[in-house]
């Protein structure tokens, strides 16, 4: 790999792809560790893993400015990591520790880091979609030029809040991107069993909104589509609906079976053949941007980071008992 032989544009693109590969691997290894920790009882409650969907968060966030807002559903570990929350603070939150990014009060479903524009994981399906439009409203009101990207699953499209919000975002021309991660199943219900319109992009027509259908197993495709949407939001203050087709390898949450009775093992295996990490790693190897040794080194480095995050979370203290009554109201 000789960067000097490339044009500056190619170099930048290579670096972007390497960054994306690193971020996807970080999410994958982080989530694998989270699954282990869950099995050991170190993580409680609900824990929704992002394995299989890494390209979506990574591709989309690569198109954002640091101060842009990101807001998510409860499947948000990946977005939180890519937005820059240290993996230790995310893992500590999953462990419910005082050093977690929400001080152990939020847990897996409620990761927050306002300084980084990460406006939370939210636990009610579709409930955070209006919040995204509100953040965009505030940005426009204050002339900040900040864009808000809202991640939600396809099942949220059946929720009233989705439709109410898309309508108002379009009427008021808000700089918001509604990024639907269509992983095909709302828990154990296939989308086509409960949705009259299965091409989610079509909903944009009802609200006179720009929309794109995107391959969510390819980080670069997601990046390109999001970049177009961000430009539309930033320059014209117009919202966009992106339907990003992806797939979750794990169960809906850690308490659910891997494939259950609602999908076949074969289907899961078929999807794994389109793995976004394998795909990008293969492409980068083909283009001579990284070799196997480089890949192995990257993976080793990331595994060490994740081990360190687990160690940090494990050794961190529980919140002080007095914390029960703090953060309820401010002065």
């Amino acid at each position, binding site marked *: 790999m000789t960067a000097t032989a490339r044009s500056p544009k190619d170099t930048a693109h290579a670096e972007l792809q390497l960054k994306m590969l690193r971020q996807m691997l970080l999410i994958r290894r982080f989530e694998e560790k989270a699954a282990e920790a869950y099995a050991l009882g170190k993580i409680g409650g609900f824990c929704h893993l992002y394995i299989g969907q890494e390209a979506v968060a990574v591709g989309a966030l690569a198109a954002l400015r640091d101060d842009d807002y990101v807001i998510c559903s409860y499947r948000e570990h990946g977005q939180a990591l890519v937005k820059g929350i240290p993996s230790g603070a995310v893992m500590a939150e999953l462990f419910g520790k005082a050093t977690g990014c*929400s001080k152990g009060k939020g847990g897996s479903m409620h990761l*927050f880091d*306002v300084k980084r524009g990460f406006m939370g994981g*939210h636990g009610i399906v579709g409930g955070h*979609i209006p919040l995204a439009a*509100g953040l965009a*409203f505030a940005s426009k009101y*204050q002339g900040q030029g900040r864009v808000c990207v809202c991640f939600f699953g396809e099942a949220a499209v059946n929720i009233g809040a989705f439709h109410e919000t898309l309508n108002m975002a379009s009427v008021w021309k808000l700089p918001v991107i509604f990024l639907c991660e269509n992983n095909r199943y709302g828990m154990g219900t296939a989308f086509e069993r409960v949705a009259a319109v299965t091409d989610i992009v079509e909903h944009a027509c009802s609200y006179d909104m720009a929309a794109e259908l995107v391959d969510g197993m390819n980080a670069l495709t997601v990046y390109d589509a999001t970049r177009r949407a961000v430009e539309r939001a930033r320059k014209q203050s117009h919202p966009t609906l992106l339907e990003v087709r992806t797939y979750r390898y794990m169960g809906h949450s850690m308490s659910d079976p891997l494939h259950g009775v609602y999908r076949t093992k074969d289907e899961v295996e078929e999807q794994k053949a389109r793995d976004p990490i394998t795909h990008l790693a293969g492409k980068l190897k083909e283009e001579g941007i990284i070799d196997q040794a480089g890949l192995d080194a990257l993976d080793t480095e990331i595994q060490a980071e994740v081990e360190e995050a687990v160690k940090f979370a494990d050794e961190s203290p529980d919140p002080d008992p007095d914390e029960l009554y703090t*953060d309820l*109201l401010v002065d």
Partner: protein
Amino acid sequence: MATLTYRDALNQALREEMQRDPNVFLMGEEVGVYQGAYKVSRGLLEEFGPQRVVDTPIAELGFAGIGVGAAMGGLRPVVEFMTWNFALLALDQIVNSAAKMLYMSGGQIPMPIVFRGPNGAALQLSSQHSQAWESWIAHIPGLKVVAPATPADAKGLLKSAIRDNNPVIVLEGEMLYNIKGDVPDGEHIVPIGKAEIKREGSDVTLVCHSKTLTVALKAADQLAEQDVSAEVLDLRSLRPIDEPAILESVRKTNRAVVVEEGWPHAGIGAQVVDIIQRDAFDDLDAPVQRITQADVPMPYNKVLERAAKASPERVVAAARRVLYLDPSPQP
């Protein structure tokens, strides 16, 4: 000091706070061009423009959530519901987003937002438009709830609500908009959480709030004719509730009747009774009585409606009961 209607007192509070802080904006159905369904926002669109007086579609869940998002983004939204009956659709945003945001983010996201609108029965609006929601809303930690009964309190409490850095619910009395009273000009602030004795007395305490202040004052007049001196305590705030004021009055009179517009089961009055029995048990000379709406949906028919509502006559009867002025009813 000017004599104003309750409606105009609220209008004055909104206008003054919008002049004071450019981050304060009003949104809701019919607040702009139509000048407010109850004319509370009269003239505000002309003065502050459509960016700060935002007409919404009929989509309570959506625009309440957009308000919450705007507060997350640093604004101070005042969200008007045409009535609290319709706000029920927005309950997910009020409870799951606004009330919990600060806590579940580990103290990162304050929520300076006001949800306001008329509450309680008016005249012959039947079951779905005649409800008092305070016990639902006051149940939720993370919210503050006020229910002003006079024009002066309406202005002072709304100003406090808008300046508060927490979500504040302002329950306006649908039947109070036309009542008149003296309202101090300019900077008139009523602190949240402070009750007020609206009429001093020594024999029995009538605890009330919002529209039931009128009921309690009429009852106190009738009781005076019967040589009973009733003290009328207007709670004004329901969360936090002024426990010391309730206890102080009951320790003086040793008897209490709690009057409210809501239904009896798990009502605000039940909470007041709990406070009294817990901390003033030894001061009581009789069990506390409660006067509420009848435990039925509000009927349309005038005679039935009158029978369902808390009335001065029912309050007088209850006061006489706690004073043992009438023979006990036969079992």
